[in-house]
């Protein structure tokens, strides 16, 4: 028989609650409590993961155990909205999903890709496409704010800025918009300062994001996206892309090539590739070992230094005599993975005067050939000069056209195609017996590439090159 009155019972509940609160409070006390310490140690607290979103935390509490179901429903709705091309609502739904799963990196990756790549491709106007590319990038940037220790998200932001803006079909327009946003009513002839606060080239902004991602990896936050040497190469590859873009596309606003700026960019690219990237200590997994190597340099002293960096497990498992061979092998493998030698050579040759002359003459020859008023004679001379320069470069650095990257080979072959077209079709003459790049033109190894560029040229009356 319960002899306690209602008031007494309530008092007991209150006291019990207060007593239980004491240990919970002590354990959870910021800084000293065991729970708080564990949270910091294992990076589990909201504050340690990234920006705290009160709505997100509250929502998770309110939903109790139903968060998964709610997230599933929202994903289904988002899919439906995408299928029915309801973009603005899709974006809202994606934002709701994020409220439920703010630290689930795949949500950020999947949905930002969705906006920047899939949704943007559905629009017909280039301005509309750019709008959705920006929405995808901004979404990913928000992801990095909420997940400050996830290198992949920073890396992906850099990738969108570099890859989507710099290499898509609309790259000329996108690169221009990146400096001069088409939404003039908001950005007044300037860039969207949320994604480009300094008003610089997209590749340079991409490089900044890649650098943050690299910093996180160096701070021991793991990335699970690709081999470490590939991942770490991205900021330096962005610098290379920047230099290449200055040559091939020129200034995004004027579309005029900037040769001096381009050479400066190549100098910086070379310094970055060999002086910074090449000197990072990289962990190469060769099971069961983890071998620490640097990509540069490859002399005896460097290998001796690398030997001192190896783990205890390496020392225990690899016999003394084989250690240097294993380290050399690991360096070789890592170099191949990221085409280290090729890019070192490329950065080096692009600073070369002959290479710069080849690029310049090719660009000028193409312009004279395509743009009104066309001057075929001047174009022929310019292209010939370009072919001569390319021939000199290739003779000095044959590895350039033998590598997997076909950029130099492509420009060299295209110069020959246009030059031959002028002689045969425009001037009605026959080709001379000998001309620069003839050996490459007739080399059977390049038949496939040659035919592909030729068909592009014929299909688009030269416009495709």
């Amino acid at each position, binding site marked *: 028989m319960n002899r306690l009155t209602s008031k007494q019972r309530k008092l007991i509940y209150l006291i019990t609650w207060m007593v239980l609160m004491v240990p919970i409070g002590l354990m959870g006390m910021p800084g000293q409590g065991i729970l708080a310490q564990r949270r910091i140690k294992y990076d589990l607290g909201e504050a340690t993961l990234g920006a705290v979103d009160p*709505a997100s935390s509250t929502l998770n509490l309110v939903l109790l155990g139903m968060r998964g179901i709610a997230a599933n429903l929202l994903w289904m709705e988002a899919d439906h909205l995408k*299928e*029915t*091309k309801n973009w*603005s*609502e899709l974006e*809202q739904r994606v*934002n709701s999903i994020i*409220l439920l799963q703010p630290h689930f990196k795949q949500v950020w990756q999947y949905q930002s890709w969705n906006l920047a790549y899939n949704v943007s491709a559905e*629009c*017909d*106007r*280039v301005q*509309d496409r750019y*709008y959705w590319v*920006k*929405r995808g990038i901004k979404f990913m940037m928000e992801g990095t704010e909420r997940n400050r220790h996830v290198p992949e998200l920073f890396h992906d932001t850099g990738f969108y800025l570099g890859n989507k803006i710099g290499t898509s*079909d*609309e790259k000329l*327009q996108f690169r221009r918009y990146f400096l001069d946003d088409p*939404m003039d*009513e*908001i950005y007044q002839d300037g860039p*969207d300062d949320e994604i480009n606060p300094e008003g610089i080239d997209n590749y340079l902004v991409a490089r900044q994001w890649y650098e943050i991602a690299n910093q996180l990896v160096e701070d021991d936050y793991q990335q699970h996206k690709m081999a470490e040497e590939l991942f770490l190469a991205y900021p330096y590859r962005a610098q290379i892309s920047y230099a290449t873009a200055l040559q091939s596309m020129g200034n995004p606003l004027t579309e005029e090539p900037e040769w001096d700026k381009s050479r400066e960019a190549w100098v910086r690219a070379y310094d970055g590739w060999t002086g910074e990237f090449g000197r990072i200590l990289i962990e190469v997994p060769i099971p069961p070992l983890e071998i620490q190597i640097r990509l540069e340099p490859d002399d005896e002293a460097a290998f001796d230094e690398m030997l001192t960096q190896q783990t205890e497990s390496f020392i225990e498992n690899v016999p003394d005599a084989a250690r240097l061979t294993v380290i050399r092998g690991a360096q070789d493998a890592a170099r191949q993975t990221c085409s280290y030698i090729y890019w070192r050579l490329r950065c080096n040759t692009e600073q070369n005067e002959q290479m710069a002359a080849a690029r310049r003459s090719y660009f000028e020859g193409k312009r004279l050939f395509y743009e009104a008023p066309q001057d075929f004679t001047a174009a022929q001379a310019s292209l010939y000069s370009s072919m001569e320069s390319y021939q000199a470069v290739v003779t000095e650095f044959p590895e350039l056209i033998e590598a997997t990257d076909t950029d130099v080979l492509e420009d060299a072959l295209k110069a020959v195609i246009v030059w031959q077209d002028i002689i045969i079709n425009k001037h009605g003459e026959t080709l001379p017996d000998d001309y620069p790049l003839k050996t490459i033109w007739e080399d059977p190894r390049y038949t496939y590439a040659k035919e592909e560029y030729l068909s592009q040229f014929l299909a688009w009356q030269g416009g495709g090159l």
Partner: protein
Amino acid sequence: MFREVLPFDILGGFTLWLMTTASLVGVILGIALLVSLVLHGGAFLGNFSRGTREVLVDLVDVSPRRIGAIMQVTIKESVRRKALLVFVVFVIVFMFANWFLGGDDELSSAKPYISTVLMALNWMIIPVALLLSCWGLPADIKDRSLHTVVTKPVRRSEVLLGRMLGYCAVSLVMLAAMGAVGYVWIIRSVPELARDQLIGRVPQYGTLKYLGDDGVVGIGKNVGDMWEYRSFVSGGTKSCGVYTFEKIDTEAIRAAGVMRLEYKWEAFRTYKGDIETPVRFRIYLINPDTELTVRISTRDFEIQEFAVGSEDTVIDIPIAGISPRPGADGEFYVTAAGADLASVGGQFDPQHLNLVDDLIADGKLIVRAYCVDNMQHIGMARHDLFIRLPDRPFMVSYAKSVLNTALMVILIVVLGTTASCFLKGPVATILTFGLIILGQGLREMMDDLLKQFYDKESPGILGGGPLESAYRLLHQMNQQSELPENLGTQFIENADQGIMHTVGLTRNFFPNFNHFDTREFLANGFDIPFDASVLAALAVTASFVLPCYVIGYLSLRFRELEVK
């Protein structure tokens, strides 16, 4: 707009209601007669007629004063139960809603803002109406306050009506206040760029058929979209979309001096082409009688996929000043192709063509839309092109939307109060909530299943009825696999037939809550059509009031109040 907008068939709806109500009354009278027979034996007829008369008097002869008094008590009681706090919650929600939606200058759509308000309105007022109406009467019975009331000269029908009206009053006042706050929030929060989307466009839709590449009527092309809402016409061919508009209000157009055509087509490219120039289209107006064909503008129009709701997708065609010859390139005006003029008959002055007199025949007009660019495509759906009648203010559309919500609230209160007459609070809540869910989410599915079931050409549901579906689920079978031929299968199929017939017979007892949903209209900047939406909502609510009143009264009259 992806939903078919059809005017509500008021006559058909009323006939159906009459039949359903008559059958319900028949069932009630049958039960009453049976009960009378069992209880009174030979004197059953007299007792039955006396009872029926009493019921009728109770239902009809009600005192507004007494109803008013009960209504007043109900309102006081609801206020005391802090029902109005929901309004405070609503205001708090919208104080912070801008955290999630606002602050983004680029967000150029008003849609999320409008959807958010309408969703919040719905999901806050529904629980209030549900809980108030379902728990009021059972609480009265539990507290025995109803015992006191029924000893007074007040009819039970008056108690029921007073309760219903009281709950409606409380809920509606709250809804009105929340609606006003929501409206102010939308006006203040929608970004500058999207302000022009806060309108109530009044569309007049036509019908659409497609001509194939050879100019013969076909079905349009599928460019690989999973969503088959639009079909595509090919550029540089005879393929086009043929919209036929009927019952055009020529006087309104004459008064405005202009006919406005609005489109929302979609481009699809089979090759990149000139990416900076959008895919282009061309529009012709055709008189269905004389076949006089007029091309709108010598310029080709460029697709504007993301300017929906703004003026960029509207083509204004002046009714006078149609020139028989093409004019200067780039100048916007209406021109007729010379060849077309020469090739048609009919009485018209080629120097003074007039849109209304020469192109619209008995309120009928044909519009043909072609894609200009070779090998590119334009996707068209019926609702993608309409004649835009003068816009209504956003406030009017918003008010209609709130009115629809108000009608839904009334229906919920009526259903909830009726359920509470014969069930306890929690059970009544579950029942009413179940009806809402059924009427909102499952009703369309149910209608779709029944459509498949009664389809004359290929009757039968994909994957079978409920039992067959359960069997397939358990055996992890897909929807197409044949079931084994045995007695069990026969039983399942026959049972499913019975279940589906029952569903078909009883579906009209479940209110269709989809008629109250106005989000798609309002969020897409359309005026809410009175005949297709408001009238339908009104009809649904009205049709349930009387039957619920009768059922509720009978339950209250015959229930034993001491049974708690």
